[in-house]
C-alpha cells in the first residue's frame, strides 16, 4: 500500500479516480474539469484555517482511502429497517452508487432518479442548477465531489405541484477505508411543495469517508422541508456541504440531526436571493465518546423582507466536542429582515466540550436580529422536580436530556421518522 500523506494526499486521491467517465455532454465535462482544476490549487484545511480551527482532520490523511467501488450485494431485507411508512419514493445509494433494486420510484407527479439517467431527458434544467450553488472555488471537498461527479439523487418538483409524500434518499456506507461521494440535487419549481429526507447511514462500524454535496434550489413561492440525518459509523469521517438558494417568497424548512461519525463537518449555506424568502433552520447534534461534530451555517439575506429562524442544539457526553458556528449576513439592501438565532448546548460530562459562535454581519439598518447562545448542564431544579415525582436520578437525567433534543426532533414533519429518532435518542440517552 502506498503511503498517502499530507500534501500529496489530494493528488493521490485524484489519480486514484481511474474511471473518470466521459460524458457526451460538454457542460458536464467542463464542470468536472473546472473542479479538478480547483482541487489542484487547494489544500486540505488545517486548524490554522479560521473556518476549521476546532476541527483537526489530519487523521484523515493517514489512511489510504480509495474511491468506493460499486460492488456490494445489499438486499432489501438488509435495509428494510430504515424504510419509512409515509414514503412512496425512495432513492438508495450504496457507497455513493445508485442502486436500482433497492430504490422505489412511484410518483409520476415529479421527476426523480439517478443523475446519469436524467442527463439526456432533463439536460437543460440540470445544466442550469447542478454545481451552481455548491461552489467549489473555495471548498476543496465540494471541488472533489464535483470532480468525481457521477451518480446522484435528482428530484424536481414541477411547477405548482404539491408532493404530499416525503422523498427518502438513503446513502448507505458498507465498505471500509473508501471514500464515497454522495450527491443530491433538489429543484422546487415555482409554487411547488416537497419534503426531502436525506439519510446517511452505516450498516456496520467502519472507517471510511463520506464527502457529500447537496444543492437545493427553490423558485418563487416554492416550499421545501428538508430533513437531514447523519447517522454514520462512529469511526467515519463525514464532510457535507449543502447549498440552498431561495427565490422570491419561497419557504425552506430544514432539520439536521447529527449523531454519527468520528469527525464530521456540516456546512449549510442558505442564500435568500430574492424578496420575502423565508427559512427555518434547526439542528441537533448528539454525540459522545471521542466524536467531534462541527456545524457551520451561513444564512445570507440579500433582499428585503426576508425571514430566517434558526435553532441549533448540541448534546455532548464523554470527551465529545461539538462546534457550532452560525453566520448571518444581512446585506445593505436586505431591509426589514427578520432573523433570529439560538444556540443551546448541553454538556453531560466535565470533559465534553462545546464551542459555539454566532457571527452576525449586518449591513442594513432596518432589521430585527435576535440571537443568543447558552452552554450548560442539566438544570438541578428540573432534576429535583422529576425526582420528587418518583423518578430515579438517572431516569430524570435521561428524560431531560431526551427532552432537550426532542424539541428539535419534534420539528421533523414526518411522523414515523420522528418516532424512530425519538426512540434512538431515548436509547442513546439511557445507555449510560
Amino acid at each position, binding site marked *: 500500500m502506498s503511503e498517502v500523506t499530507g500534501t500529496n494526499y489530494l493528488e493521490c486521491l485524484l489519480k486514484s479516480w481511474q474511471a473518470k467517465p466521459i460524458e457526451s455532454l460538454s457542460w458536464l465535462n467542463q464542470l468536472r474539469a473546472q473542479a479538478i482544476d480547483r482541487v489542484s490549487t487547494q489544500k486540505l484545511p488545517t486548524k490554522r484555517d479560521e473556518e476549521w480551527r476546532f476541527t483537526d482532520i489530519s487523521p484523515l490523511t493517514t489512511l489510504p482511502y480509495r474511491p468506493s467501488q460499486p460492488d456490494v450485494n445489499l438486499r432489501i431485507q438488509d435495509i428494510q429497517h430504515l424504510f419509512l411508512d409515509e414514503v412512496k419514493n425512495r432513492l438508495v445509494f450504496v457507497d455513493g452508487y445508485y442502486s436500482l433494486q433497492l430504490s422505489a420510484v412511484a410518483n409520476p407527479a415529479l421527476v426523480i432518479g439517478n443523475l446519469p439517467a436524467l442527463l439526456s431527458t432533463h439536460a437543460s434544467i440540470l445544466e442550469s442548477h447542478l454545481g451552481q450553488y455548491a461552489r467549489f472555488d473555495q471548498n476543496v471537498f465540494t471541488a472533489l465531489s464535483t470532480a468525481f461527479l457521477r451518480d446522484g439523487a435528482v428530484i424536481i418538483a414541477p411547477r405548482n405541484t404539491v408532493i404530499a409524500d416525503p422523498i427518502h434518499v438513503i446513502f448507505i456506507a458498507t465498505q471500509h477505508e473508501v471514500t464515497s461521494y454522495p450527491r443530491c440535487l433538489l429543484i422546487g419549481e415555482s409554487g411547488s411543495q416537497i419534503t426531502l429526507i436525506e439519510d446517511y447511514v452505516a450498516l456496520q462500524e467502519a472507517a471510511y469517508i463520506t464527502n457529500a454535496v447537496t444543492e437545493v434550489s427553490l423558485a418563487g413561492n416554492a416550499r421545501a422541508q428538508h430533513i437531514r440525518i447523519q447517522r454514520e459509523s462512529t469511526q467515519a469521517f463525514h464532510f457535507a456541504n449543502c447549498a440552498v438558494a431561495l427565490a422570491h417568497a419561497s419557504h425552506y424548512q430544514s432539520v439536521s440531526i447529527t449523531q454519527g461519525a468520528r469527525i464530521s463537518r456540516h456546512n449549510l449555506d442558505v442564500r435568500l436571493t430574492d424578496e420575502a424568502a423565508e427559512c427555518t433552520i434547526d439542528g441537533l447534534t448528539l454525540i459522545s465518546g471521542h466524536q467531534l461534530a462541527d456545524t457551520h451555517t451561513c444564512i445570507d439575506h440579500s433582499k428585503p423582507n426576508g425571514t430566517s429562524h434558526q435553532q441549533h442544539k448540541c448534546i455532548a457526553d464523554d470527551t465529545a466536542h461539538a462546534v457550532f458556528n452560525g453566520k448571518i449576513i444581512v446585506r445593505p439592501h436586505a431591509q426589514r429582515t427578520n432573523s433570529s438565532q439560538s444556540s443551546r448546548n448541553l454538556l453531560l460530562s466535565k470533559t465534553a466540550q462545546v464551542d459555539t459562535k454566532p457571527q452576525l454581519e449586518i449591513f442594513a439598518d432596518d432589521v430585527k436580529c435576535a440571537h443568543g447562545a447558552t452552554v450548560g448542564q442539566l438544570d438541578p431544579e*428540573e432534576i*429535583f422536580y422529576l*425526582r*420528587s415525582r418518583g*423518578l*430515579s436520578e438517572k431516569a430524570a437525567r435521561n*428524560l431531560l436530556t431526551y*427532552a432537550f433534543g*426532542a424539541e428539535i426532533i*419534534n420539528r421533523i414533519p414526518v411522523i414515523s421518522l420522528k418516532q424512530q429518532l425519538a426512540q434512538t435518542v431515548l436509547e442513546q440517552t439511557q445507555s449510560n
Partner: protein
Amino acid sequence: MIIENSPTILSVQGLRASINGTEILKGIDLTVKSGEIHAIMGLNGSGKSTFSKVLAGHPSYEVTGGTIQFEGKNLLELPPEERARAGLFLAFQYPIEIPGVANTQFLRLAYNTVQAQRGKEELDPLEFDDFVREKMKLLEMKPDFLDRSVNEGFSGGEKKRNEILQMALLEPKLSVLDETDSGLDIDALKIVANGVNRLTNKDNATILVTHYQRLLDYIVPDFVHVMQAGRIVMTGGKELALELETRGYDWITANKQQDAGVSA
C-alpha cells in the same frame, strides 16, 4: 379531621437546615396524624418553602439537626424519589417547566413508578389516557394540557392545577401544598380546593402552606401554625387564621418576645 388515636404520619423534631452555609430552619417541631389538615402561615421569607423542600429532599439544603420520621421511616435517609414513592408529595410553589417532555409522558412515568413501588399494575399509554382524563375532569382541566410540554407556557393557575392533578394521580399519604392557592382566580380556587377536598380522607394528611384565609374557607384546617424565622412559633385552630387575617403578624412577634423575656 382530627381522629382519636389516629396513627402519626409525619413527625418532625428540632429540624434545622441551611443553604450555602446560611441557616434557614432553626428547629422545627411538627406532628401530623392521619386524617389531619394543617395550615402553615407566615411572612415572606420565614422558611415555609424551605421546610417543604427539605421534606421532599431537595439536595441543595443541608440538614444540620433534628429528625424527620415519615410513617415510621427515617425520611432523611431517603433520596427524593424514594420519599415520593413512600407517599410524600410536594406541590411546588413554583412548578418547573420542562420543555420537550409531554405532560402525559411525564404524568404516566410518575404514575407508573409509584404504582410499581406499591406492587400495583402499570398502565400503558392508552389505558393511562382514559385514567388521566377522568382525573382531569375533577379539576376541570382541558385535555390539551396532556399534549403540551410539562408546565411550559402554562399560566400560573394552570401550573397549580397540574400540580394537584399529579397529587390526584399519585394518591400520596402526605401532601404538602406550597401556596397552591397563589395566583388562582376565585373560580379556580374553588375547583382546586374542591379537588383537594375530594382527595383527602381519614388515611392521608395534608399540609397547606398559604398566605390567605380565603383558601381555608374552602379547605378547613384542623391546625394552623405560624412560622417565623425558621421556627413554628404558634399553633392554633382554624380561628387563628382569621385572627392573622385581621391582626397581621406583629402581635405574634410581640408575644414571642414577651415569652422570650419571661423565659430568659
